[in-house]
C-alpha cells in the first residue's frame, strides 16, 4: 500500500491540528512526503516549520483555494 499520504486536517479539532501535522512529519523518512489538505492557506504553519525544521522540509502548493488548499510537505533527503 503506497498510495499518496494525505492528511486532511479540516475535521481535526483546532488544538490537535498542529500536533498531528508535526507528528505525521516526524514519521516521514528522508525523501518521503505527505499532502496537507486544509480550508485556508496554512502559511502560519509554514513559518512554524521554518523555525522548527529549518532546511529539513519541502513545501509545495498543489492547490490554492478557493475551497481547499493542498500542500505537499516533504522531509528532505538526508
Amino acid at each position: 500500500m503506497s498510495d499518496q499520504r494525505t492528511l486532511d486536517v479540516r475535521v481535526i479539532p483546532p488544538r490537535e491540528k498542529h500536533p498531528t501535522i508535526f507528528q505525521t512529519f516526524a514519521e516521514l523518512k528522508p525523501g518521503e512526503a505527505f499532502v496537507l489538505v486544509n480550508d485556508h492557506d496554512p502559511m502560519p504553519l509554514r513559518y512554524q516549520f521554518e523555525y522548527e525544521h529549518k532546511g529539513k522540509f519541502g513545501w509545495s502548493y498543489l492547490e490554492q483555494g478557493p475551497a481547499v488548499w493542498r500542500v505537499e510537505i516533504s522531509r528532505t533527503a538526508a
Partner: protein
Amino acid sequence: MRLGLSSEAAPDAGVDELIRAATRHGLPALELRAGDGHGVSCDRAAVPHAIADVAARAAAAGIGIVGYRCTGAEDDAALATLATALRTTVIVDGDDDAEARATRAARLLAAGTDAAVLLRGGTVVDDARRLSREGISVVWEANPADATLGGVARALLEEFPAALHHVSFLGGGPETVMHEGRGIGELMGRLALAGFGGTVVLAPSSPRYRVAWSTWLGRHGGSGCGSKVSDRSLIALSAPSAAGSAS
C-alpha cells in the same frame, strides 16, 4: 484520501443541493442514504435514466458517489439496478447484526452488485476480520463518542487495509471543535501514514446538530442581507459566549 458528505447531513436536500454543498466545501464525494430527501431510491430506479442522470450530474461536478446506504427493507434486485445506474456500492446497513448484514452483502455480491457492510460499535475489528476473510469490504462508522478511533484505525489499517471501503465519520463540519481529545487527530494521522486511498464521509453525530450542519452547508438564508458569501464563522457549537471587541 478524500473527504465526502453524507446525505444524512442534509436529509431534506435534493441531489443538486447536496452536490452544491459538497462542492462548496471541497468534499469531492457523496454517500446517499436511503430515505433521505435526495430522491434517489429503489422506486425511482425503475424510471429509465432517472438515476443515471443523477450519476452524470455528480460526475460533471467532480463528485464521486461513494455508496448508497440501504436500510434493510429494500429488494435485492431493485438495489442492484440502483447501484448499477449510480455506478456505486451498496452499503448494507440495518437494525440487524453484522452477521445478517454480511449474509445480505454476500448475496448481493454473488449477483454481481458491488456491496460492503457497515460496521459500528465495539466489535468492529473482530467483525471486519471475519468479513475480510470472506472477501467482503467494510464501511467503518467511526464515532468519536466511542473514544477508540485511533486504536480501531490502527487495527483495520494494519490487518486488513484492502477491506476498508470507506470510513463513515460521525463528526467534522460544524462539529469539528467539539470532539477534542477523542482521537480524531490520531485517526487522520494513521489514515495518512497508511496511505489510505479511500473516502472519509462526514455525517452528523446526532440529529440535534442538524441545524448547525444545515448552516454550515450554507442552506439558511443564502441570499440577501448584503453578503456575497454569508459569514458563518461565528456559528460554532461549543463557542464560549464572550466574543472579541475587534472583528
